[in-house]
């Protein structure tokens, strides 16, 4: 094989700057916002125009600042995020113009954070040094909600800071993945080694099962004290997926999933509001006037949308409780149809594919685990809430990343994707250095 074949194989997978891809990503959101504004009937002084201009301005500015997408790490990931944000913003605008203007602010902050992470992070290995600080901060954030938290929707996960309410568990999730990546990098060789077998399944040595149990305990504490089922699933699920990436052992994942199921069963026995979620999931129609109202309304909305949807502004997504936040996917299906819903799910699938692609390319273990972890976090969160909205899995209140209304969740998702893009960019920079003149001492 010649050098040329290697380079060709590489360049096929890394798209260069692509203006038209970003344009295609922005168009659906912009058309959606336009339709929502037209349908609302008042064209003059409508907040729709402001939202439309703000949304396209934020993403175009970022695109231009990063050399028309060349230095952003991965233009495909960037366009996918722009697409999801646009579609979400259009639906939020249609549901509540006031929320949409605030959401533009969240978007601007999120994109600014992503840009800062991609442009100014000196090196991801610097982040690795702070892994224990990340874990400690994460625990403090979680503890703060247990002590000072305000209850909303059965979960006690909000902090009331006067003018704004924030959800510290969103930031805690991202910090925890940073810690997992550092921890698993240190122990991955040990985790892969094991001698004992039980019924043909490789078992890890007991001493390495300790951290697994610890994370399980943390998830349960979250569940018990915060009554936040969604956060517990995400914390533990992301850890299991990263453990699988680091060790290649399905037995850890199966064991962990069994532990989570056991914990969930115990909690549903102890807490009525968790039990209610399970019972409603089994048959929402029996409770369509009470606990199952939300799920049933969301299923009606999805059905009403048909193939192409009713168009933003012409459906009735208002009747679904929490439509702009947790149930935004049902509203999207109602007004943008089955095709729109598929496109959104497909965008998450592609996002996961690209994130794992960069994780598999990364020559540094920490970088690989970080990219895989952040990707799993976003993918898992999307799966949890889309499944919940459609009644496929028990409903847990988490947001749809980049789409749902919510400042904390928006900024946390942008931070996560910023780290993935940073990992991609570092990988590309090393690749370029190598091509210029042999291996430069990149492995410290």
């Amino acid at each position, binding site marked *: 094989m010649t050098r040329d074949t*290697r380079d*060709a194989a590489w360049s096929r*997978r890394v798209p260069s700057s692509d203006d038209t891809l970003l344009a295609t990503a922005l168009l659906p959101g912009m058309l959606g916002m336009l339709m929502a504004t037209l349908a609302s009937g008042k064209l003059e002084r409508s907040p729709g125009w402001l939202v439309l201009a703000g949304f396209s301005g934020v993403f175009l500015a970022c695109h231009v600042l990063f050399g028309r997408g060349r230095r952003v790490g991965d233009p495909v990931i960037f366009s996918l995020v722009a697409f999801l944000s646009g579609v979400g913003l259009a639906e939020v605008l249609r549901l509540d113009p006031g929320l949409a203007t605030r959401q533009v602010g969240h978007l601007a902050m999120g994109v600014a954070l992503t840009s800062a992470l991609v442009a100014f992070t000196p090196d991801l290995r610097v982040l690795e040094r702070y892994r224990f600080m990340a874990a400690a901060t994460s625990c403090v954030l979680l503890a703060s909600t247990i002590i000072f938290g305000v209850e909303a929707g059965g979960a006690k996960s909000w902090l009331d800071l006067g003018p704004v309410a924030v959800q510290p568990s969103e930031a805690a999730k991202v910090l925890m993945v940073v810690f997992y990546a550092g921890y698993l990098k240190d122990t991955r060789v040990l985790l*892969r080694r094991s001698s004992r077998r039980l019924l043909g399944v490789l078992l890890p040595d007991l001493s390495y099962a300790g951290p697994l149990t610890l994370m399980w305990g943390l998830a349960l504490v979250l569940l018990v004290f915060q009554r936040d089922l969604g956060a517990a699933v995400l914390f533990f699920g992301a850890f299991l997926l990263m453990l699988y990436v680091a060790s*290649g052992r399905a037995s850890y994942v199966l064991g962990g999933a069994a532990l989570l199921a056991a914990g969930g069963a115990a909690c549903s026995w102890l807490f009525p509001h968790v039990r209610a979620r399970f019972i409603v999931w089994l048959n929402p129609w029996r409770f369509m006037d009470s606990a199952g109202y939300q799920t049933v309304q969301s299923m009606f909305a999805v059905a009403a949308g048909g193939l192409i949807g009713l168009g933003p502004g012409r459906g009735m997504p208002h009747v679904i409780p929490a439509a702009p936040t947790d149930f935004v996917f049902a509203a999207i299906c109602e007004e943008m149809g089955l095709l729109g819903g*598929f*496109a959104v799910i497909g965008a998450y699938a592609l996002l996961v594919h690209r994130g794992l692609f960069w994780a598999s*390319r990364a020559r540094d273990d920490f970088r690989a685990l970080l990219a895989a972890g952040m990707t799993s976090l976003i993918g898992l969160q999307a799966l949890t809430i889309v499944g919940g909205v459609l009644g496929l899995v028990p409903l847990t209140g988490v947001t749809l990343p980049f789409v749902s209304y919510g400042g904390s969740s928006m900024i946390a998702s942008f931070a996560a994707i910023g780290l993935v893009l940073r990992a991609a960019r570092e990988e590309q920079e090393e690749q370029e250095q190598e091509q210029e003149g042999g291996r430069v001492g990149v492995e410290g």
Partner: protein
Amino acid sequence: MAFMWLLARVALAGLMCLFLYRAARAAGLVAERGRLPRGRGRGELEVEAGPGVPSRGERFSLGPVTVLGRSPESDIVILDPYVSAKHAEIVLADSRFFVRDLGSANGTYVNGRRLSRERSLRKGDRLELGDTVFRFRG
């Protein structure tokens, strides 16, 4: 007016799907210009025997370029004293995987034959580096 709205609805759903298609193509998941998608270009190495790391039964999926060796920079790190730092590499070209030796001390063997130049891997091929044996799964 109702017709215009119908057009807008079709355009919205269509644009969403168009973007997904274009993004998938940019990610290399869709065939371009009538070429076969890289469905055939999937390969996996399964460890059949080895002195420890990687352990038996472990599987590695192959990327566009996979370097095997003892150095921690390799894509597949083999902790085997008879394996060189950069021992061999496997490259994907035209939906096939080619293996070549990178000037290792003890050589790379495919089905018992020492490699002198690159050769393509076929399903079930046995790849030996030092004491470590892989099986290629197409």
